[in-house]
C-alpha cells in the first residue's frame, strides 16, 4: 500500500498526498519517504517565523497568491502549538488562507507542534520533503508564533523570513534574543500601522552593528492584510535565492541539514537501542535506591548503562565528528 502511495503522490493524487503527510506526521512514513526522497530537492523552502499575531499566516497567503499569479505551485505547512496539558490543538492558520483552498496549484496542511519546542513539529521536515517530491515549486513553512528562538526553521528551510510588526512591545526583545541572526529577509508587516519608521530605523541600526556577513537581510515593509508590499518582499527573497545559488550557500545549508537530520534520526535509534540493552531485572531495585536517597539519578543511570555493557564513550570519538 505504501509503495503504491508514493507512486500516487508522484502522479499528482491529492488524496494520496494527504495520506502520505498524515503517515509522516505520525512517524509512520519510512517506506513512503524512502520512495519519495530521490524526487526531492527541486522545491525552494521558505520558512516564515515571527512573534504571535505578527501576520505570518496572512503573509503566507499573500506570498502564495503572488507566486500563483506567476504560475508557480505552492505547498504550505502551517504549524500551530499543541496544548502541553491535553495534547490537543486548535489549528487556525488556514483561516487566513481561505482564498487558496480551492486552487489546484496549492496544497495547505496544518500541523500541531505535538510537544516540540522551537517553532516546528518533530516531523515538519518530512512533510516538506513530501510536498517537494509532489512537485510544488515553493514550500512555505509557517512556524508557531514563539518569537524567541525559532532556530529550527532556519535549519529546515532554504530561506528564513522573519516577520515583525511596528509597535509590538516584545519586538525588539525578540531581536535581542538573537532571532535576527536566522533571518535571510525581514518583513515589517502591518506597515499600515504607526511605528513602521521607527522599527525600520531600529532594524537598520542593529543590522549595521552585526558582525560582517556575506548576506545582509533585506528589510521590506508589507501590509499583508491588503497585499501591499508583498511582491517587493518576494523579489527580495528571489534575490536571496539567486545569491544562495550563485555562491553555493544553498548547497552548504542543505548539506548541514542532512547532517542535522541524520543526527536526529540517530538519536532516535540510539535511544531505542540503548533502552533495549538495559538490564530488565535490576531496574526497580535501582529506582528504590534513588527514592531512598542512597543513589543519585546520575549514578543510577551510570550503573544501568554499565550493566548494559555498551562501549565506553570516547572509545572512538571520530565516529561522532560529523555532529
Amino acid at each position, binding site marked *: 500500500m505504501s509503495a503504491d502511495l508514493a507512486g500516487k503522490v508522484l502522479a499528482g493524487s*491529492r*488524496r494520496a498526498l*494527504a*495520506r502520505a*503527510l*498524515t503517515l509522516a506526521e*505520525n*512517524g509512520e512514513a519510512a517506506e513512503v519517504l524512502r520512495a519519495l526522497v530521490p524526487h526531492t530537492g527541486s522545491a525552494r523552502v521558505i520558512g516564515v517565523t515571527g512573534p504571535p499575531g505578527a501576520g505570518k499566516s496572512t503573509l503566507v497567503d499573500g506570498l502564495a497568491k503572488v507566486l500563483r499569479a506567476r504560475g508557480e505551485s505552492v505547498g504550505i505547512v502551517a504549524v500551530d502549538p*499543541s*496544548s502541553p496539558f*491535553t*495534547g*490537543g*490543538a*486548535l*489549528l*487556525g492558520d*488556514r*483561516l487566513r488562507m*481561505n482564498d487558496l*483552498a*480551492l486552487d489546484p496549484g496549492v*496544497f*495547505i*496542511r*496544518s500541523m*500541531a507542534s*505535538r510537544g516540540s519546542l522551537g517553532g516546528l513539529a518533530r516531523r515538519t521536515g518530512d512533510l516538506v520533503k513530501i510536498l517537494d517530491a509532489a512537485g510544488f515549486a515553493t514550500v512555505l513553512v509557517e512556524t508557531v508564533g514563539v518569537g524567541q528562538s525559532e532556530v529550527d526553521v532556519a535549519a529546515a528551510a532554504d530561506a528564513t523570513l522573519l516577520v515583525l510588526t511596528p509597535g509590538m512591545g516584545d519586538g525588539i526583545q525578540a531581536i535581542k534574543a538573537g532571532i535576527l541572526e536566522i533571518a535571510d529577509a525581514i518583513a515589517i508587516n502591518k506597515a499600515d500601522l504607526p511605528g513602521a519608521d521607527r522599527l525600520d530605523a531600529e532594524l537598520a541600526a542593529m543590522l549595521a552593528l552585526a558582525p560582517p556577513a556575506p548576506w545582509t537581510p533585506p528589510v521590506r515593509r508589507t501590509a499583508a492584510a491588503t497585499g501591499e508590499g508583498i511582491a517587493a518582499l518576494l523579489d527580495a527573497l528571489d534575490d536571496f535565492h539567486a545569491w544562495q545559488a550563485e555562491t553555493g550557500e544553498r548547497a552548504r545549508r542543505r548539506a548541514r541539514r542532512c547532517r542535522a537530520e541524520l543526527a536526529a534520526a540517530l538519536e532516535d535509534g540510539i535511544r531505542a537501542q540503548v533502552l533495549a540493552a538495559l538490564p530488565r531485572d535490576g531496574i526497580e531495585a535501582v529506582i528504590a535506591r534513588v527514592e531512598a536517597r542512597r543513589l543519585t539519578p546520575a549514578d543510577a543511570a551510570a550503573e544501568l548503562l554499565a550493566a548494559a555493557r555498551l562501549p565506553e564513550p570516547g572509545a572512538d570519538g571520530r565516529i561522532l565528528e560529523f555532529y
Partner: protein
Amino acid sequence: MMKPIRVLVAKPGLDGHDRGAKVVARALRDAGFEVIYTGLRQPPERIAEVALQEDVDAIGLSLLSGAHNTIFPRLFAELHARELDDLLVFGGGVIPEGDVPGLKAMGVAEVFGPGTPTAAVIDFLKGRLAA
C-alpha cells in the same frame, strides 16, 4: 505514541454567528483533539477540499441558518467527488427534530441540538474514532 484525532469544524451558511462552532472547537482541543477551524461562511466545496488536504477523521458542521437540508447533500456530493465517502460527518446547531431522520438517512452520523453538552460530542467522536 498515541495519534490525535483530527477534526474539521466548519461553519457553512450565510449567518454571521460562529460562537457555537468555536465552543465546540475549543472543547475538542481541550479533550485532546487536533481541530482545524476555518471560520465563517464556508461553502461545502471548500469544506470538502479542506477535509481532503488535512486528512481529517471527522467533519462537524455548525448550522444555524436552516439550510441544513441543502448544505449536507452538497457536502456529501463534494466528499464523494473526492472519494471521501467514509468520513464521519456530524452536525450541530439549530436543526428541527423532524429533519434529523432525513439527515441520518443521508449519511449524517449524529445531530446535536442546541444546548448539547460538549462532552456528548467528545464521547461520540471518541466512541466512533478511537483507534
